């Protein structure tokens, strides 16, 4: 189904077969059909109208969906191919970025923040790459969610890291601009609503991330940062699952080349490290 005409054609085919359409959405690619009698007659009518159909299982709780997904992911089922590619590239890219960080910054006082930057670069880069692969297949709600999550998480992570190393002003400006740029880039896939959502999330995440680490500098920032980074990773992992669950079931996508993926993560890391090293350091505290 691609449009309203498809919805009408299927509705008519179903009604001619003696059933009724309770709900139908071309953008989501599903229809809820009420029927008494022979299901195969309805299926044949829909196929005769020029559409193929897969029956969805009865609505399952999210925990069960996730459990099934994890089993499929581990078993390497074809449906999870794009996500597995993203995961593999992420692990390899992180190992390379960690090695580069270790070689260049092992003795630096900023080392741990460079590592946080590498983790963030890979996690955010993975979300961007996945969103890019499915960019033509998001409906409005999905596009808004993608723009918001990427903008907010990127702003939070990079704002918090630079806030901790350079102070609130530089952290806020960097986190906000990066969050807005990335949120806009992925959100625009679904038009102005997604782009706006990405921009607003970037402002919020960037400024709040920097504020958070500056305010916590004398109160267990060192213990908080791993939890904070992990929490954002969890949210980004959820986003990747969401993309797989919705857009991934509607279409097949081509993931970017490994070299492009690594270049994206490396660019995010290099940009952050350059800001940490060369931007002004306006405050003093545990992290500076």
């Amino acid at each position, binding site marked *: 189904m*691609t*449009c*309203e*005409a*498809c919805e*009408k*054609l299927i509705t*008519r085919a179903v009604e001619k077969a003696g059933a009724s359409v309770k709900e139908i959405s071309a953008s989501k690619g599903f229809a809820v059909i009420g029927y008494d009698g022979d299901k195969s007659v309805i299926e044949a009518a829909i196929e005769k*109208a*020029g559409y193929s159909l897969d029956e969805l299982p009865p609505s399952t709780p999210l925990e069960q969906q996730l459990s099934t997904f994890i089993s499929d992911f581990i078993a390497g089922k074809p449906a999870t191919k794009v996500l597995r590619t993203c995961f593999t590239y992420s692990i390899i890219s992180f190992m390379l970025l960690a090695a580069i960080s270790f070689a260049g910054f092992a003795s630096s006082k900023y080392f741990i923040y460079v590592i946080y930057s590498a983790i963030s670069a890979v996690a955010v880069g993975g979300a961007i790459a996945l969103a890019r692969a499915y960019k033509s297949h998001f409906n409005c709600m999905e596009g808004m969610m993608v723009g918001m999550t990427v903008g907010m998480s990127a702003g939070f992570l990079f704002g918090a890291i630079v806030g901790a190393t350079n102070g609130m002003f530089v952290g806020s400006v960097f986190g906000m601009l990066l969050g807005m740029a990335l949120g806009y880039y992925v959100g625009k896939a679904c038009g102005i609503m997604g782009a706006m959502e990405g921009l607003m999330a970037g402002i919020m995440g960037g400024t709040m991330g920097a504020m958070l680490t500056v305010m916590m500098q004398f109160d267990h920032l060192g213990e908080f940062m791993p939890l904070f980074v992990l929490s954002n990773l969890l949210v980004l992992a959820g986003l990747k699952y969401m993309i797989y669950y919705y857009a991934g079931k509607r279409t097949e996508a081509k993931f970017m080349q490994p070299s492009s993926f690594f270049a994206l993560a490396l660019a995010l890391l290099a940009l952050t490290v350059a800001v940490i090293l060369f931007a002004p350091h306006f405050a003093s505290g545990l992290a500076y």
Partner: protein
Amino acid sequence: MARMSFKVKGMHCPSCEKLLQMDIGDIPGVKSVKADWKAGTVDVDGDKIDKAAVKKAIAGAGYKPE
């Protein structure tokens, strides 16, 4: 058998063609309907076709007849 041709705005895919062909095909006297979404045209063949009924069917399907 007479032929009527209509310019139709709003068609954008083969589903639009099918929908119009189905709706116009139900009008009494219509023998065949050929919609072309790329050209934005609908050709109707038949006897004693009510032009207003065809336009009404096009509008009813969500398109704009000219």
